[in-house]
């Protein structure tokens, strides 16, 4: 049984990003349908926190490189270890793809990405309808793939924590396994 936890910085980032990402996904799904006055407010928050999420995932990659994550216990079969690794790579890919596609699609729409009313991100793409079409749909496709990955991730974490009780969930919770 593995007893080492993730570094405290990695754990703080993991749980705060979990909260942020779930909020952003729900906000995104709700706001694209709404004609209500809060649409604008939510849209501006979604863009601002999207930039926060991009900065956070960059920090997370640095922390992951700096502090080696604890290994999976030997009770986990090699194939499952590979699948776990792949799922983590895909989660990181989605964490980058969501804010970057959001930023670029705003560029293609000719809209600035203004962060908390303080500054605007540079525009990297020209205004272009077909480009917007691709980036806007890509943002949506990745969102659904991200949701599927998150559900699998939560299911696997709970399986480790409640069924196998092999200490893997505790690596991210930060407390020592009880038994």
């Amino acid at each position, binding site marked *: 049984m593995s007893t080492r936890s993730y570094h405290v910085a990695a754990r703080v980032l993991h749980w705060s990003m979990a909260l942020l990402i779930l909020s952003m996904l729900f906000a995104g799904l709700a706001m694209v*349908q709404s*004609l209500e006055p809060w649409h604008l407010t939510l849209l501006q928050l979604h863009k601002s926190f999207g930039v926060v999420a991009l900065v956070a995932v960059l920090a997370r990659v640095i922390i992951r490189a700096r502090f080696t994550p604890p290994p999976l216990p030997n009770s986990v079969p090699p194939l499952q270890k590979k699948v776990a690794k792949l799922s983590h790579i895909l989660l990181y890919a989605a964490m980058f793809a969501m804010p970057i596609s959001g930023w670029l699609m705003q560029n293609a729409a000719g809209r600035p990405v203004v962060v908390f009313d303080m500054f605007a991100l540079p*525009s990297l793409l020209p205004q272009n309808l077909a480009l917007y*079409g691709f980036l806007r749909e890509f943002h949506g496709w990745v969102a659904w793939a991200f949701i599927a990955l998150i559900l699998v991730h939560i299911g696997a974490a709970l*399986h480790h924590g409640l069924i196998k009780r092999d200490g893997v969930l505790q690596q991210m919770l930060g407390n020592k396994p009880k038994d």
Partner: protein
Amino acid sequence: MSKPESSQLALRYAIIAIVVGGLALLFYAVASGLGQRIVTAQEFVDYQEAGNPHLGFRRAHAKGFCIAGEFISSNHVGPYTTASVFNERSTPFVGRISTGGSNPTAPDLASSVRSLALSFNPGTRDAWNTAMNTPPVMPVRTPDAFFAQANAFAPDPETGERNPERIAEFLAAHPETQAAREWQASYTPTGSFATETYHSINAFFLVDDEGSKRAIRWSARPSSHTVPDSVIELDDDPNALRNELVARLENRPVMFDLIFTFANEDDDETDPTVFWGDDRTQRLAGVISIHSATTEAEGNCDGINFDPLILPRGMAATDDKILRARSAAYAESYRRRARENLFQAREGGSQ
């Protein structure tokens, strides 16, 4: 490590199923409109399409063409707003002149609504888009009422005719439609896009360098140099009005005065159904000078969403429910036609 009993194990699997399944269900429900109390952007644009979408085109004001020119600031409104457009001498724009409706090949003269849309400084914090229409007011003040109005005026699916009883019922329930109806009754379309007055309809805030907000509406009025009659004979060409504007541009730019109308103390800036008369303070913000007109295929206005909530520093949105809804509905229309352009599904239009 102790092995849990089988009943306990079943409970633990149940917890996992409930957490994961519950979250999946919640995502699905929110994506399907859970928590949306009023008509959604998708339902609204579906209504505009009326089961017959013109792929690749704007769902409203589908028929139009591109214009380009510059805005020349008057220096009269700089103290009220930090917006660069009103503080710099001149700012170029790309715009679009269009007629109402969802049919991109409808004859210019068939539509009762004409509009002038402008886009400044795209992609920057000073980006400003405005979509102005010939009516000065909205008939209703909420998206729900707008939808109810659309339904009341829609032809009966059985008879193909409008139902006067349903219309009367709607109007009785919505006295706020009065100003719009009075304007409609008094309005006669002119023989040129250049001789119409175009209105912001909704109110916006100007924000000065101390952060003070003042509610205004704006309108683009034909400049005093404008030739009042059509400069060419309007024939039955579906693009008759576009041809007329192009003929004007061969001689000189087409110009409009951009007038700001400041709210009175009693005015509610969130209510677009009330007409703001000329007894209010008005300022000439500058001159819109149109230099050229091109088809959408040749021009560069097709990629622009003339979302009235793309506002620069120095301007801000009011809490007008129609204004907020306009922005959200434009976004859905923009997404649909962008997707169609991506898959190159655009139909032959007025090009």
